[in-house]
């Protein structure tokens, strides 16, 4: 019953201080296309950058170095480690992530509970894991291999998935909790993913919030999406739906003022629209406005 011990400890440990990461307020995913917009946000305290886009040598992308030098926290966000793969995480990819930490001075990194390649083929996308004990074991082993080299904590993000494996042994909350308990990793909770999965599966997103270890949250993702072909797609290229903003409110009723980060990956709107979304997030969570 080792997994049950973790639960009891978490319940009785409710008085523990929340996770200390140096992250606060509202942040935004830094992308080269919106570097100018991000640079002009006066209250910005943290950004996230795709870890694989940080060159191991040579200059950092223009604008990112300025943010770092201005004291904005830069969090490398990996998308290609394939931590949920049955194959061991590749050492050179871990080394590259460590290098990204060194170059950005990041207090933590994040990656996904997912796999992106198998059998020598790249999926080109984050794929869901079967929620089985074998998948827990594989993910835990890879997270531990990564942690062994990382000088900072890692936060793990559950993904949005359009399909599920047919033979789950655990539900989503139990699956994630086991991985977090066994690795000591932090949680990067993506509320847009929570919303997308619940809507596509016909389940209640708030019920999932009530079962996740919210005290392990390092920060929170929000993003826009769109309905297409009977499915809700977490596109990161559409406006933030009010339902996701409502989930921010539900989360903040359960965990005080989590750091929030807006992800936008394309079809960039006018700056005023992005500012409106950032302001809405600040208001929903009781954070200072950063625009």
């Amino acid at each position, binding site marked *: 019953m080792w997994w049950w011990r973790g639960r009891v400890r978490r319940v009785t440990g409710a008085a523990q201080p929340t996770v200390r990461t140096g992250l606060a307020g509202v942040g935004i995913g830094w992308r080269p296309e919106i570097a100018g917009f991000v640079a002009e946000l006066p209250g910005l305290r943290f950004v996230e950058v795709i870890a694989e886009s940080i060159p191991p040598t040579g200059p950092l992308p223009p604008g990112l170095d300025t943010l770092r030098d201005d004291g904005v926290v830069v969090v490398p966000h990996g998308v290609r480690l394939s931590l949920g793969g*049955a194959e061991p995480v590749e050492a050179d990819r871990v080394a590259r992530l460590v290098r990204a930490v060194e170059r950005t001075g990041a207090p933590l990194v994040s990656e996904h509970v997912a796999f992106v390649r198998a*059998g020598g*083929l790249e999926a080109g996308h984050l*794929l869901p894991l079967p929620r*089985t004990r074998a998948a827990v074991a594989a993910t835990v082993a890879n997270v531990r291999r990564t942690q062994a080299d990382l000088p900072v904590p890692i936060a793990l993000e559950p993904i949005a998935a359009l399909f599920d494996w047919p033979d789950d042994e655990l539900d989503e909350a139990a699956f994630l909790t086991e991985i977090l308990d066994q690795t000591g990793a932090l949680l990067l909770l993506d509320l847009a993913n929570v919303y997308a999965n619940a809507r596509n599966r016909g389940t209640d997103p708030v019920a999932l919030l009530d079962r996740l270890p919210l005290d392990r949250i390092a920060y929170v993702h929000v993003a826009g999406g769109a309905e297409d072909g009977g499915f809700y797609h977490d596109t990161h290229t559409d406006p933030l739906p009010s339902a996701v903003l409502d989930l921010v409110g539900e989360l903040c009723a359960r965990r005080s003022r989590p750091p929030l980060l807006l992800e936008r990956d394309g079809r960039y709107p006018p700056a005023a629209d992005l500012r409106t979304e950032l302001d809405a997030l600040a208001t929903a969570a009781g954070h200072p406005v950063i625009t």
Partner: protein
Amino acid sequence: MSGSGADDLAARQAALVAALVTGGPVPPGFRSAPWEAARAALLRKRAGEVARHWPLLAAGLGALWVPSFTDWAARRPTQGGLRDGWDFARHLRDRAQLPTLGADELAAREATGRYDGHTTPRPRRFPALGRAAGAVAVGFAGRVRLLRAAPRPPAP
């Protein structure tokens, strides 16, 4: 869970990725509608990544970009946005279907990079000409200049 659990997981993950990126049948036990939605979304995302590497090729195809690229890519595992676009541009060139903007872009890439179709393209060390569908570009010292644009179709 024993080692066989890990072996089983590896085999099932490999089978899933292979089915997803080579257009194989829906794996046993998976619901087909979510599977097909995921495959279509993956191909659209891939088209967007390739368009970032090959903006003129994508612009030249306009509204046909996503359907034509995803149709070509559905049975071909990705090799990354640069190579996917290069392969697709050559595919169109060989069928005389390359749009003029795409021809200009392919000629420029052929002039500055050496790509064998199988491994990562490498920068050319010496000046070279690149040609595609009537477009001619010259590459030297990492720079490229279009010597002749692909012939534009007559105005309607």
